[in-house]
């Protein structure tokens, strides 16, 4: 996928003016947060499970080579064909070769962020194989020729009315006067449209939420059942998974599953969690005859042993973006690549370079909500700060920005001067804003005040208030 992360500021600007997007994002701001909280509160062991999940992945990453070898050995023993790929290009070529080996014309697809990362759909299409997205959200954005805007709800930026319009313009064979006013009618129509495609496809491509080393198994977690129809009906099932998906045992899978769905959608379990091991057995009445697993690095091994290693614990639940005020305001497309919100702000610079994606780690207020809800306890704000440091070291920020930071650093290292100046500033702003209590515009802060007012300080700084409180106590 072509990255537009460089244009984050323009993208964000446009997003704030987009009425449809703002309406759609309204559903995100409320739904996910309450559901996750209710699910977490209903399980007394939830926090202990988060610790255990973090520890499982830390242990796995410290021994990643060994677990990958064990996974490969066991998967091969059970009849899987394992393909290793260092780059996106390798992975695309490998998948194309498998498709061509059976003369495939269509490939159904379960939702896979790795497939988005390597731009698989466009590539297959250019090579004469029609990719068919089957997850409802992915199906909608495929019709709209858009990238996903959320890692588990790819069409979260689209309103119901837009879906209706898209279906009417693409499903021309259906009666024009049919009713599509209810979401259930839209779901039923997509179900109907895709049914025959599942049956006709030569190849089914899915991602993997996990690879289990102990048993050589790949695991997908879905709600619609599309991933399962994708992988059991065609002759060939291809799994594409990145190297950090491996976990040691079935028990470890159980621990992580208990935090995954609760963090993602507030469900205790997603409707379907499916373990696949090898191709169909000789006496099985159904299932794929060939089972291929493509293991992709694409920049991840380079994160090991760096300050970004902990990002490789991520299980792609989406809780960080669901709780992020910046994501809520601008939506996923503004981030300009596959991974969005706080996890995207850390992962995107790692995978495509901080020169491309330097704006993303800056698009955070460091409020810390992402880290507080991350089931794998990934210190996202800390890592965004590391990226800001890298960006500064490499002189990637514009000159005005660098001068501003330098001036601030000068002051911050001289506490008396800092307190005197901020005390004066806050007093003056408090006086100037006394009547209205807020500012509609401020010099040097036009970008900030364009979309909201700046609250007027009440005359004293935090440090002054703190000192008073200590004296009073």
């Amino acid at each position, binding site marked *: 996928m072509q990255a537009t992360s460089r244009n984050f500021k323009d993208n964000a600007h446009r997003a704030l003016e987009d009425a449809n997007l703002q309406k759609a994002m309204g559903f*995100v701001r409320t739904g*996910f947060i309450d559901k996750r909280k209710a699910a977490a509160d209903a*399980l007394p*062991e939830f926090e*202990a499970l988060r*610790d*255990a999940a973090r520890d499982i992945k830390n242990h796995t990453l*410290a*021994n*990643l*080579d060994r677990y*990958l*070898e064990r996974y490969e050995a066991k998967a091969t*023993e*059970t009849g899987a064909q394992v393909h290793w*790929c*260092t780059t996106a290009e390798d992975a695309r*070529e*490998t998948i194309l070769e498998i498709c061509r080996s059976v003369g495939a014309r269509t490939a159904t697809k379960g939702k896979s962020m790795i497939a988005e990362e390597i731009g698989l759909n466009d590539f297959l299409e250019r090579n004469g194989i029609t990719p068919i997205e089957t*997850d*409802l959200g992915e199906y909608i954005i495929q019709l709209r020729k858009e990238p996903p805007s959320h890692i588990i*709800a790819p069409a*979260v930026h689209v309103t119901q009315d837009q879906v209706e319009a898209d279906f009417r313009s693409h499903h021309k064979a259906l009666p024009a006067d049919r009713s599509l006013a209810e*979401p259930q009618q*839209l779901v039923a129509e*997509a*179900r109907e449209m895709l049914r025959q495609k599942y*049956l006709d496809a030569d190849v089914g491509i899915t991602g993997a939420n996990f690879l289990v*080393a102990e048993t050589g198994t790949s695991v997908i977690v879905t*709600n*619609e059942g599309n991933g399962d*129809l994708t992988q*059991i009906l065609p002759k060939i099932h291809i799994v594409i998974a990145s*190297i950090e998906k491996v976990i*040691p*045992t*079935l*028990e*470890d899978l*159980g621990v992580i*599953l*208990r935090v995954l769905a609760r963090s993602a959608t507030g469900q205790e*379990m997603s*409707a*379907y969690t*499916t*373990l*696949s*091991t090898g191709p*169909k*057995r000789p006496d*099985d*009445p*159904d*299932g794929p005859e060939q089972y291929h697993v493509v*293991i992709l690095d694409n920049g991840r*091994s*380079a994160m*090991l*042993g760096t300050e970004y290693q902990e990002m490789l614990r991520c299980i792609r639940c989406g809780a960080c973006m669901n709780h992020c005020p910046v994501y809520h305001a601008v939506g996923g497309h503004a981030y300009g690549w596959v991974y969005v919100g706080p996890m995207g702000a850390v992962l995107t610079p790692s995978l495509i370079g901080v020169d491309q994606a330097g704006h993303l780690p800056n698009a955070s207020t460091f409020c810390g909500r992402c880290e507080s809800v991350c089931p794998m306890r990934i210190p996202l704000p800390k890592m965004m700060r590391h990226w800001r440091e890298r960006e500064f070291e490499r002189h990637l920020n514009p000159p005005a920005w660098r001068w501003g930071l330098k001036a601030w650093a000068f002051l911050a290292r001289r506490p008396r001067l800092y307190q005197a100046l901020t005390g004066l500033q806050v007093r003056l702003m408090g006086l100037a804003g006394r009547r209205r209590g807020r500012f509609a515009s401020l010099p040097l802060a036009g970008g900030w005040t364009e979309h909201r007012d700046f609250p007027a300080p009440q005359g004293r700084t935090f440090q002054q208030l703190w000192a008073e409180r200590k004296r009073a106590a």
Partner: protein
Amino acid sequence: MSGERSSTARGQILGAIRRAVKRDGTDAGSAVERRLAEHPEGPRVERARLPHEALVALFVEKVEAVQGSVARVDSPEALPEAVADYLKRHNLPTALRVAPDPALTDLPWQEKAPLLSVSAGRAEAADAVSLTGCFAGVAETGTLMLASGPEAPTTLNFLPETHLVVLRESDLVGPYEEAWRKLRAREGAEGPGGALPRTVNFVTGPSRTGDIEQKIQLGAHGPRRLHVLLVADGEG
């Protein structure tokens, strides 16, 4: 040639990982071997550690919480009537595709449910209703665990709009740890180093999607209805 590319890539990836994790020479990987051999359990989840009747109640509560339904059936012989009842009550087609499992196909369909037309096999596109067995039920979350095999085609779990599942009470377990033990015991029965079944499905309620404005709709691509027939088999 993809085989060559793959083995070059394999060396590069594993080499890059080894350089990055910087283990000292004394670490021979015994922690990895131990973990794989002993598969230690995580934090103990208390919710589903219950006596049998309470476990059944929890299972039913959890299935219903995700829009599935459960009927308790006294004996396997009563299954045909229970199935016919359910289909009639919901005004569903009477053609039933049954998993090719003698425990299901040998039930007294003709005598007890003469109006149903029963055939065995994998699911085809036109099948509206399926009936399958079930490897285990996990009470902790109201989850069904279905394992593929000659007598259990996976297509039956996904293609039809209505999926009926026969679960014996003796196959009900509490937490996930018990489910893994049961799965591993089955694997052991096929000899050491035996494989898991091709597909193991954990099914928690009927198919759903929230992809349109976050409003949950049932029956996205998999079954719209999931009905569990919980059979008392005297081993609970």
